[in-house]
């Protein structure tokens, strides 16, 4: 059972500037991530769900500093990666890796599988070519690919196999933390299960910690220990998996879950909450709660103030004025993340 947070995110902000006019003046910002705080315990899988454009991928990329943070801190394994100097960041890279969404686009078509997997090894280790090849074979075994495939090119593989190559590359340097950015979104249903099972096996065997970004709520229920629901750059709710799926507290989490189609005609035809309208633009979010334009239970206060993310039940954090406002999440955020159920982490 994990005891400490491997990843601590505090008030993370990622703004992308908008330049307009002839002078290309800075006229505004796309607030892709606007003040997000959470912890990921060692050995756990945190699911991050939300609709497209809500900032979930931006969070994932910011966490391993593929972007320069606008504000806030990201502490991974004791070091604030937001402020690390380039050389120190480079030495830190092996701890944190990423599996990308599109296995077609994230593998270089002109390099063989062996070359693709070897690149991080060449960059960060001093293995001899023979040792490197041995490590590549070991990695191919781990992700369930035949060793003979090492000399083939990405186009010779199917989508699921390509995703395995991407996973092998992410594992090459023995990372502690892996950001999985929609790793199954581009795959067929029958192949998705294979990749998810592989990710779970690797976690058991290597003690990995995952941030699993997805819009597939059923799959997140399967793989995640805790789930954060994002809406327009902010976390609406962060709860242990079973609690969230049994009884979502935030109105957006509730609507999102009710919109999912269950593969069962009896369940799929139940009453659902159909949200009206579209997601507002992150360049111009509403003044109050980001969800106030579509919320079926909107109140006056929601249009004027942004609700803080607070603990409303043990282990459950919700940003909504429907719940009594007590201590906002600040420096004591860690306390809110204590696991509430034995066996929630395996």
């Amino acid at each position, binding site marked *: 059972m994990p005891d400490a947070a491997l990843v601590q995110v505090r008030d993370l902000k990622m703004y992308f500037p908008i330049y307009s006019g002839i002078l290309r003046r800075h006229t505004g910002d796309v607030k892709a991530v606007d003040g997000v705080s959470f912890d990921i315990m060692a050995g756990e899988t945190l699911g991050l769900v939300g609709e497209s454009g809500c900032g979930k991928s931006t969070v994932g990329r910011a966490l391993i500093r593929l972007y320069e943070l606008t504000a806030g801190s990201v502490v991974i394994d004791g070091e604030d990666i937001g402020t690390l100097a380039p050389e120190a960041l480079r030495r830190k890279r092996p701890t944190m890796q990423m599996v990308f969404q599109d296995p077609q686009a994230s593998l270089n078509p002109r390099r063989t599988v062996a070359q693709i997997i070897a690149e991080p090894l060449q960059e960060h280790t001093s293995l001899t070519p023979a040792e490197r090849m041995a490590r590549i074979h070991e990695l191919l075994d781990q992700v369930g690919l035949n060793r003979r495939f090492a000399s083939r090119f990405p186009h010779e593989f199917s989508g699921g196999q390509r995703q395995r190559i991407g996973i092998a590359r992410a594992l090459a340097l023995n990372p502690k933390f892996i950001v999985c950015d929609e790793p199954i979104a581009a795959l067929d249903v029958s192949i998705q*299960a294979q990749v998810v099972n592989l990710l779970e096996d690797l976690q058991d065997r290597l003690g990995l910690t995952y941030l699993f970004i997805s819009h597939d709520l059923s799959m997140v229920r399967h793989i995640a220990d805790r789930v954060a629901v994002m809406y327009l750059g902010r976390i609406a709710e962060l709860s242990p998996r079973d609690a969230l799926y049994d009884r979502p507290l935030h109105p957006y989490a509730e609507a999102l879950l009710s919109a999912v189609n269950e593969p069962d005609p009896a369940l799929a035809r139940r009453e659902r909450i159909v949200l009206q309208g579209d997601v507002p633009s992150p360049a111009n979010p509403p003044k109050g709660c980001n969800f106030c334009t579509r919320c079926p239970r909107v109140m006056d206060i929601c249009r004027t103030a942004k609700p803080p993310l607070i603990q409303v039940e043990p282990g459950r954090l919700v940003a909504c004025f429907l719940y009594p406002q007590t201590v906002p999440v600040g420096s004591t955020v860690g306390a809110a993340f204590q696991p509430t159920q034995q066996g929630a982490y395996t």
Partner: protein
Amino acid sequence: MPDGGDNVLDVRGLKTVFRTRGGEVHAVNSVSFHLKRGEVLGVVGESGSGKSVTMMSLLRLLPSPPAEIREGQVMLGGQDLLKISPQALRDVRGAKVGFVFQDPMTSLNPVFTVGNQIMEPLMRHKGMTRTQARQRAADLLELVGISDAANRLNSYPHQYSGGMRQRVMIAIALSCDPDVLIADEPTTALDVTIQAQILELVKGLRQKLGMGVIWITHDLGVIAGIADRVMVMYAGQVVEHGPVRDLFGNPQHPYTRALLKTIPSLTGKRAARLQVIEGQPPIMLSAPNACPFRARCAHAMPVCATQNPPRHAMDGVTLGQGHDVACHWTPEVAYA
């Protein structure tokens, strides 16, 4: 569930092949189905299973070469769409059959206003004047749930969000009151909350307008929510077909069963491990004289390698009217 009614569309023995340098790809193999008025037929299958190619073949929308429709009959309103002249076919496309394409980002013309694109079929098929067509276009946008429709007609597609563009596609497809609406993965590119809006919209409209709807998707959840009947395709063939409740409640084909098991559920017990279908879908280069699923099937028998199983009815009724399955291994026991 809508009661009977005559068939608006009847497809028999459709075969489409693609001629490629590597040989002929048998993309659609003897596919037969029908569609009744006011009914939603769901078509499920993985990518490459031939769902889209089947529907494109109906309206001869595939570029030829490389595509070639070998055999089959597509009866719509007493005429065979595969035999009529290109001129006659143009009067069918968009008028009697509306088509909603998969990707709303690329299916709308970026240099014409949304209004222009909805008005085009109205003026072409219904002989309306610009003023009449404009009025009708505004009504249609209203119908698909876009507010301030009259002003929105002057917008260009890029000024619309993804969900709104998809609604514009639906408005265009509905513009000439078609008998049949073919929707090819209309919600795949959309988020779940927008998808829910579109599903409710189509459910309401088919009752109001009484058209038959063919809904193509790889999302079994969507099918469970909207379809009356379901057709499961694998490697260019129909492997199972039946009323939605029978098919989900009592799946017969090993592929359908496996597919339903691979999807984690949102409710109910959480499985420790997901079931998988091992292997990959076949490449359909050889003529289909064996069961295409045999390599991944847990129940494969010697006969599966020598004979492609025909569809046979499960409950004694005429083929196509009830639940039918194309499999040599028939778990009659399970069908209690």
